[in-house]
């Protein structure tokens, strides 16, 4: 076990994947000489050369589109999208090509493309640098979607994503890049749990908080704070958003009967909606209160000075916990109004 930041763990994961399989090539803007604006590819061009660590022209559709062509030729491209908000020019290639080519050719063509996305807010960035677009890809059949929350998972899941024969959207919370943790660099992929599984990061009995990405830390903080009030909250890190590991999720919900789902992304047709719709379907008779969502508002990401009013924080999660536990909470007085809606 080695202590390292998530950024370094991702770097180590890329390096190991390149050592494991010479068909792995990295592509993206500024990933070569600069090592990426977050330095996730630092040193890799020196080690593997410009043929495998490819600085690309500034065009995201071009990056993903040429990655598709490389996959046709037998390569396993790992694409870096510089920031979450810059993935949209590549949306057509991702949704109409990357996601569909395996199906379209009845399995004759594989698309083992990993698209890494430095992701989400909370870093005081300029516009388009704090987006949470994951739901778009969860809704897109043919893609897998991973969102990591700690260095160990980042290292393991990135290697698994690259080794997967399916295309994977790989979301890396930017505000955790400097977050440290123990990483087992030695373990073999064969022994590791598959990347599609969720994880109970904190066991608890009174309610379940389901979340992913940087919000896992916030949820853990909330659970710690609640403990002081005598509440025992379970926290689940989904890790995989497509597929979602409903075995782990429903096992928890059946025990607690009370659910909060939290994410930074906006609410309408987001991942929390999916999780709640599925939980309702699978665990209806176990639910003791309506599951509650704690999400970013349905607004464009606000300017940096206002982002704290958009991002779910510890207090908003605890308020939601109060709601699912039928304790006094912010909407108590509004409940009558809620009924009229």
């Amino acid at each position, binding site marked *: 076990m080695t202590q390292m930041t998530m950024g370094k763990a991702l770097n180590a994961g890329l390096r190991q994947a390149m050592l494991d399989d010479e068909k792995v090539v990295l592509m993206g803007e500024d990933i070569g000489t600069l090592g990426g604006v977050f330095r996730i590819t630092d040193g890799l061009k020196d080690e593997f050369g410009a043929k495998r660590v490819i600085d690309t022209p500034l*065009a995201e559709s071009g990056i993903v*589109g*040429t990655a598709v062509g490389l996959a046709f030729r037998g390569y396993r491209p790992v694409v870096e999208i510089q920031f979450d908000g810059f993935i949209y020019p590549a949306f057509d290639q991702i949704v109409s090509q990357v996601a569909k080519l*395996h199906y379209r050719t009845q399995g004759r063509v594989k698309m083992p493309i990993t698209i890494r996305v430095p992701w989400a807010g909370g870093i005081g960035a300029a516009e388009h640098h704090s987006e949470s677009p994951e739901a778009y890809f969860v809704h897109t059949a*043919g893609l*897998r979607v991973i969102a990591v929350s700690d260095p160990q998972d980042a290292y393991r899941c990135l290697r698994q994503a690259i080794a997967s024969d399916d295309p994977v959207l790989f979301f890396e919370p930017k505000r955790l890049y400097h977050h440290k943790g123990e990483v087992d660099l030695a373990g073999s992929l064969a022994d590791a749990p598959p990347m599609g599984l969720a994880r109970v990061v904190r066991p608890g009995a009174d309610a379940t908080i389901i979340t992913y990405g940087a919000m896992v830390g916030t949820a853990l903080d909330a659970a710690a704070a609640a403990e002081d009030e005598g509440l025992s909250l379970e926290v689940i890190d989904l890790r995989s958003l497509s*597929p979602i590991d409903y075995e782990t999720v429903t096992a928890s919900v059946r025990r607690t009967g009370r659910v909060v789902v939290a994410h930074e992304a906006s609410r309408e047709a987001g991942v929390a909606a999916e999780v709640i719709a599925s939980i309702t379907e699978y665990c209806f008779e176990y639910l003791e209160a309506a599951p509650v969502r704690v999400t970013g508002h349905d607004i464009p990401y606000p300017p940096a000075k206002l982002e704290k009013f958009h991002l779910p924080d510890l207090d908003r999660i605890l308020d939601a916990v109060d709601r699912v536990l039928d304790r006094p909470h912010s909407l108590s007085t509004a409940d009558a109004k809620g009924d009229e809606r």
Partner: protein
Amino acid sequence: MSPNTSPIVDAQNDLELTERIIAPDGTRVSNPQLDRWIDDIDYAAMRELHRDMVVLRRIDSEGVALQRQGQLGLWAPCNGQEAAQIGTGRALAPKDFVFPSYRETGVMYTRGAEPGDYVRMWRGEESAAYDPARLSIAPLQIIIGAQTLHAVGYGMGILHDGADDVAVTYFGDGATSQGDVNEAMIFASSYRAPVVFVCQNNHWAISEPVGLQSQYPLAGRAPGFGIPSLRVDGNDVLACMAAMRWALDYARSGKGPAYLEAVTYRMGPHTTADDPKRYRDDAELALWRDRDPIARLEAHLRAAGELSDEHLESVQKSADDVAREMRAACIGMQTRPALAVFERVYAEPHSGLERQRDDYTAYLASFEEA
């Protein structure tokens, strides 16, 4: 300060500014740039090119007929474009890999497509028409221009492998307006990838004349991206072959991408669902009928006394044979069973989709029980 290309806006004069080897009336003209690329093409070889074009036209008309008879959902005719497709397609090496649009029936033919390959997609049986590895062609592409980037990525892979294959991409005049096609030129040029861009300028993008996409020759765009280009008479099969050989040689020898604009004409509707009478003049069509690529090669061969009636009959027979096989393959196709919709979405198990498949299986079974 002024554009380095002259305006080309009408289908009438468009052909005058192209490179060619056989004039519309069938006479051979000398073309110092192109001639040397086809000095091995004797009359026997020309007769084979002629046969290819006739067979292709027959495949195409059979496609239209099958659609009319309800056997296909749609068909995208390529009549008029036989020289552009056969000439360029026959210049390819077996390992070159093609990224086509949806109208390259002739290129499929030159790659050895089987009869069912022409119709499987249009009949709605499968999204891809054939096994890409078998034909060295990527699946037909419907998203306009998307395939050009795939070709460039494939070409980057060729470079990486140190191989001497070439990635070839076909696209239409309308496609040149898509961002992807321009990005493809940029990436190809930047990496000097072995890619040949073949733009079949058939003068129309559904109802839109090429002048809406560009008032200047499309081939004129490539040099600005550092890509040499050639504007060739797309109804002259020899010129198309010669130009393609030049372009392939350029790409294969490590110099980077090359670009062809084959100036031709879509004589049919956009697809069987389209009604060109709504937007184009009969006179324009008549003009281009006079420039028919097949008639032109026939005139050339006949004038040289190199085309006998018996030969023509044998050609017609091979065409009819292919059409018959194609029809039989089409009509005999078996639609896959319901649960096939869940197959090959992913290469590895996906628990969410498995759950849906199980539920749907149970749902279907509930009918059988009842």
